[in-house]
């Protein structure tokens, strides 16, 4: 039986991890993630899990130790944010290249400089090309549900890849929400026993991890890694189906909101989607056909499916909570790539919002939807990419 609780996003993720009960976890503090793993440390100290913690001296060592632990053979977790994820960057590629299914909630936060501890997506977007699967979450419930599903996806024998579960710093990690917990036994049963692929601890069959691969084979290894990513979508959907059977909550590659007959649409990740949905309802009440697409699986990116979902719209705005300076927002680039394959495609604009925890307000969504409505009516695009909610 599901249990209704009022918890923060961090607490929800910590509980999901407790219910999975992994063998090893790396713990290192960084705002706003700190609170998640310190809760987990309490579970260890109180004997609620079998996990052995490694209280590392940096995130680089955290990911290094997680890689060692995962290669040794067992279920491994850690969590991080911002600078921590940036410090891990080198090791993120090694975790995926070694095909180790490490699960890591990432509590999204801005990157320095200037120093800022609040929520935006610069950290995870900077890690989008590291070969990790990325699943994004709007609220505490989704962060909890995605964390549980991530184990099944990453550990799938056809996949064996690490997974980041992204949730917005403070807005989700530290806000109390009403949500549902699954029973411990349900989660345990859902994720199942960890299956090893090539465990170092199998001493009878000594293996070597991390060889030097030169020009004769490196290209082939990367091609193989690309192939695995192609299989992820189906596994994510299969796992979501099983999850729905257990929880009643439905997940896909992305979520659409009133998009079926929409003329104009917003594409937006994570917590800001909630605010946007309210404003879309207002526009619908005014007779304007507005809709929304909220990506869930960002890596691998479901280009065809997204294009299919947006193909009948007239104008779309992609809202990015991070910037690729000198380029478009990272989410915009993906949506743009997805739509380019269509013969007829909507007009596309890009807004950068909410950096460093700047509030995303209903008025922002309203402004954007009004602009889209104008464009859909035959108006001109003034500027493709611009910052909103910014003082002149």
């Amino acid at each position, binding site marked *: 039986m599901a249990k209704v609780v009022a918890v923060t996003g961090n607490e929800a993720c910590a509980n999901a991890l407790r219910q999975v009960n992994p063998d090893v976890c790396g713990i290192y503090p960084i705002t706003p993630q700190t609170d998640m793993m310190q809760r987990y440390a309490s579970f260890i100290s109180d004997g609620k899990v079998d996990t052995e913690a490694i209280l590392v001296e940096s995130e680089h060592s955290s990911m290094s130790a997680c890689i060692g632990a995962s290669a040794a053979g067992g279920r491994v977790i850690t969590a991080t944010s911002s600078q921590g994820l940036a410090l891990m960057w080198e090791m993120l590629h090694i975790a995926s*290249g*070694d*095909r*180790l299914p490490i699960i890591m909630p990432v509590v999204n936060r801005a990157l320095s400089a200037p120093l800022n501890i609040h929520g935006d997506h610069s950290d995870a977007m900077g890690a989008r090309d590291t070969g990790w699967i990325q699943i994004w979450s709007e609220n505490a419930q989704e962060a909890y549900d995605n964390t549980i599903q991530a184990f099944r996806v990453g550990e799938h024998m056809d996949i*064996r890849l690490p997974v980041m579960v992204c949730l917005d710093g403070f807005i989700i990690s530290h806000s109390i929400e009403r949500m549902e917990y699954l029973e411990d036994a349900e989660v345990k049963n859902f994720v199942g026993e960890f299956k090893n*692929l*090539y465990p170092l601890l199998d001493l009878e*069959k*000594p*293996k*070597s*991890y*991390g*060889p030097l*691969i030169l020009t*004769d*084979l490196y290209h*082939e*290894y990367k*091609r*193989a890694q690309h*192939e*695995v990513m192609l299989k992820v979508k189906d596994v994510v959907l299969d796992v979501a189906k099983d999850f729905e059977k257990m929880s009643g909550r439905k997940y896909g590659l992305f979520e659409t909101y009133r998009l079926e007959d929409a003329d104009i649409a917003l594409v937006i990740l994570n917590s800001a989607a909630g605010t946007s949905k309210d404003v879309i309802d207002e526009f619908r009440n005014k007779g304007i056909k507005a809709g929304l697409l909220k990506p869930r699986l960002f890596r691998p990116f479901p280009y065809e499916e997204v294009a299919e979902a947006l193909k009948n719209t007239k104008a779309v705005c992609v809202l990015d909570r991070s910037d690729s300076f000198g380029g478009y927002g990272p989410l915009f680039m993906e949506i743009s790539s997805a739509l380019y394959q269509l013969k007829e495609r909507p007009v596309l604009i890009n807004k950068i919002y909410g950096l460093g925890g700047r509030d995303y307000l209903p008025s922002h969504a309203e402004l954007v939807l009004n602009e889209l409505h104008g464009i859909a009516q035959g108006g001109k695009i003034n500027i493709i990419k611009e910052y909103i909610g910014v003082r002149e």
Partner: protein
Amino acid sequence: MKQKGWKELVPGAVVLEGGSACKFKTGSWRAFRPVWIEENCIQCLFCWIYCPDMAIKVKDGKRGEFDYDYCKGCGICALECPGKKGKKAIVMEEEGK
């Protein structure tokens, strides 16, 4: 040897056979060749313990011939060889001579 295609690779580039480097012969690197003169050998095994290439065959605690498949010809064995009565049990000779 036919190179492997991407579908034939082990996930994560893990090497599944321990000690497979034995299949890679390094003897062709040699410019000088150590020659063992058995009558001068006192079986101290210094050559064996100091060999960086595990290229000296030892059986039942007694040294045998060099393993020229792997010996890179560094000459550490010859230098460290105490020999017998001032006569070295290992001497280096130029390859191909």
